[in-house]
């Protein structure tokens, strides 16, 4: 516990963590501003513009409506099955059709927090990697081991500190994000949310904090292995591009990708599509089949990956000479 406390102190003292917090908060505030803009009722100019569009639609129908109806009667094969040429080709336009509906916290706000949670988790990966790689690169790890030579304790304390520190970081950021989004919609009186909405948001945030902790631990474990933050990011980017993006996709195994698993874990499930093709009439008939990835599946895939990487980092650190 003593080592863990020291490592947590070091994590919290790192400038990257403080700068990361500042950048995250500024980004959240910027997003909240766009949410506020989206929550506002339409302005006079927007209403005027929409009325113009309505009039244009009416004018078009007045001019070409009869010809359109005649064409429908003469060539029904060019229209959809069961079309009523007299009544289905034109609907009286309304101003609301040309205005963006103001957003609400319950709909857009919570989705925005979900999107920000993914970004925070990626930032946590960087924090975890840099936490370890900075110490390795500066040589301070070797100095540390002359004081505490039990590599198991040292490794465990650093991985745990990375995870706990990142979890705290993510919790603070998501709290700020939720507050900022709610405030943005509350200004326009659109912050109402049901108890169910709040429970869903709390669950989403909890899963995002867990994801941040896991990715930070993964970054730290990978850091012991490759010893440079840039190398860690390179490995992750390479994996996402090659394995996640190309190989597993080509094999139709998207459900095992980290991207989809992360999305499923945070959002409470994710959907993907696979092409199923069958022979038909001398050719192929393909259709997109919807598949679903559950929260549990996403969480388990991520957990296994984190455990494997952290275990690999331990195996290497245990045996490797430290300069």
């Amino acid at each position: 516990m003593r080592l863990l406390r020291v490592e947590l102190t070091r994590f919290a003292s790192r400038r990257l963590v403080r700068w990361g917090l500042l950048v995250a908060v500024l980004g959240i505030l910027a997003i909240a501003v766009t949410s506020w803009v989206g929550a506002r009722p339409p302005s006079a100019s927007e209403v005027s513009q929409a009325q113009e569009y309505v009039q244009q639609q009416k004018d078009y129908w007045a001019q070409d409506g009869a010809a359109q109806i005649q064409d429908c009667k003469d060539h029904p094969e060019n229209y959809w099955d069961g079309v009523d040429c007299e009544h289905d080709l034109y609907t009286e336009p309304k101003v609301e059709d040309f205005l963006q509906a103001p957003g609400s916290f319950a709909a857009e706000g919570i989705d925005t927090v979900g999107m920000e949670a993914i970004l925070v988790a990626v930032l946590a990966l960087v924090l975890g990697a840099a936490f370890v790689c900075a110490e390795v690169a500066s040589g301070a790890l070797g100095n540390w081991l002359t004081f505490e030579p039990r590599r198991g304790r040292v490794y465990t304390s650093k991985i745990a500190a990375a995870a706990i520190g990142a979890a705290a970081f993510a919790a603070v950021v998501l709290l700020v994000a939720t507050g900022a989004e709610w405030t943005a919609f509350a200004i326009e009186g659109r912050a109402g949310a049901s108890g169910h909405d709040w429970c869903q948001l709390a669950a989403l945030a909890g899963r995002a904090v867990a994801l941040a902790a896991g990715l930070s631990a993964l970054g730290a474990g990978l850091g012991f292995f490759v010893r440079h933050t840039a190398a860690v990011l390179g490995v992750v980017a390479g994996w996402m591009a090659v394995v996640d993006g190309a190989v597993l996709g080509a094999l139709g195994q998207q459900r095992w990708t980290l991207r989809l698993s992360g999305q499923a874990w945070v959002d409470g499930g994710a959907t993907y599509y696979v092409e199923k093709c069958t022979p038909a009439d001398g050719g192929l008939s393909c259709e997109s089949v919807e598949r679903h990835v559950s929260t549990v599946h996403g969480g388990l895939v991520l957990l296994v990956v984190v455990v494997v990487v952290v275990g690999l980092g331990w195996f290497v650190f245990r045996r490797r000479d430290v300069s």
Partner: protein
Amino acid sequence: MAATAPAGDAPAIVTRGLRKTYRTRRGKRRVAVEGLDLTVPRGGVHGFLGPNGSGKTTSIRMLLGLARADAGTMEIFGTPVPARLPDVVARVGAIVEQPKFFPAFTGRKNLTLLAAAIGVPSQEVGRVLETVGLGERADDRFKSYSLGMKQRLAIAATLLKDPDLLIFDEPTNGLDPAGIREIRHTMRGLADQGKTVLVSSHILAEVQLVADTVSIIGHGRLLASGRVEDLVGGAAGHVRVGVDEADRAAGVLEASGWTVRRESPHLLVEGVDDAAAITRALAAEMLFVRELVPVKADLEQVFLELTSGVDSAGGDVHPEEPRHAAPPDGTGTAARQGSTDDTTTEDAR
């Protein structure tokens, strides 16, 4: 092999048959330490000398558990390491290579983290900082420190544990003369308190000033070990001769059986027991000495004699003729020669 002495009487450091090899990028094995038998007695300052790439730092890193030995045994105060290094690490303070701390943290914060990690009260941080003279700069970032200040912070860190054994690897590298003297006084002061100080250094003159005993290694093997005065005293004396007609005089002296080196405008006569014999030999040929200065053997001379043939640039080793010596006992006067073989070794620090 001798039985391990009781922990209370055990030397500070004992290694037997220590071996370490590295694999190069081309898959070849490079020997860094080859069968090193080192004994560092308790108390005093023990110099650990050797050419670049002879395995000094590698040996120290293996002792501290930073590198894994391929073979051999090691003990610190009679405790086998690295298996039981945690049992004895509280008694060991070390600076290996350049001082390494977190650059963005202050000196004080660096030491505070270390103190917290090993359960030392935080008040000790202020005390050790004052001891090494860093009190006023303690709250500046480590990366803003000069090399001398970094060394002092590293020494302060080692003192946090109040260790019985201090290991300094090249502690004066890059320091100015004032800094070197300060380090020397620090080491001597620690030894005078009853601690054991192992110092690895290239600056032989400094080591000779401060060390009580030394071990000299080459090719990763022990070449000599013992008290400084015994090692230096065993080396034959030289005499610098100033004489007109230096070439004729050199011929006369060489004909008399001495080895003569020409160091214009002087002659350096080696292996001289009686300087008067030189003047007699020259006077017999009507050559008269205008200068006759005994050159006292020093550690550098011993070092160079023992390590000649080691190519510090990492080239082939040229085997020397074996010199008979008694095995080192860590306390006596014996000089031991390290045998060479046909194995080609390269620098593997």
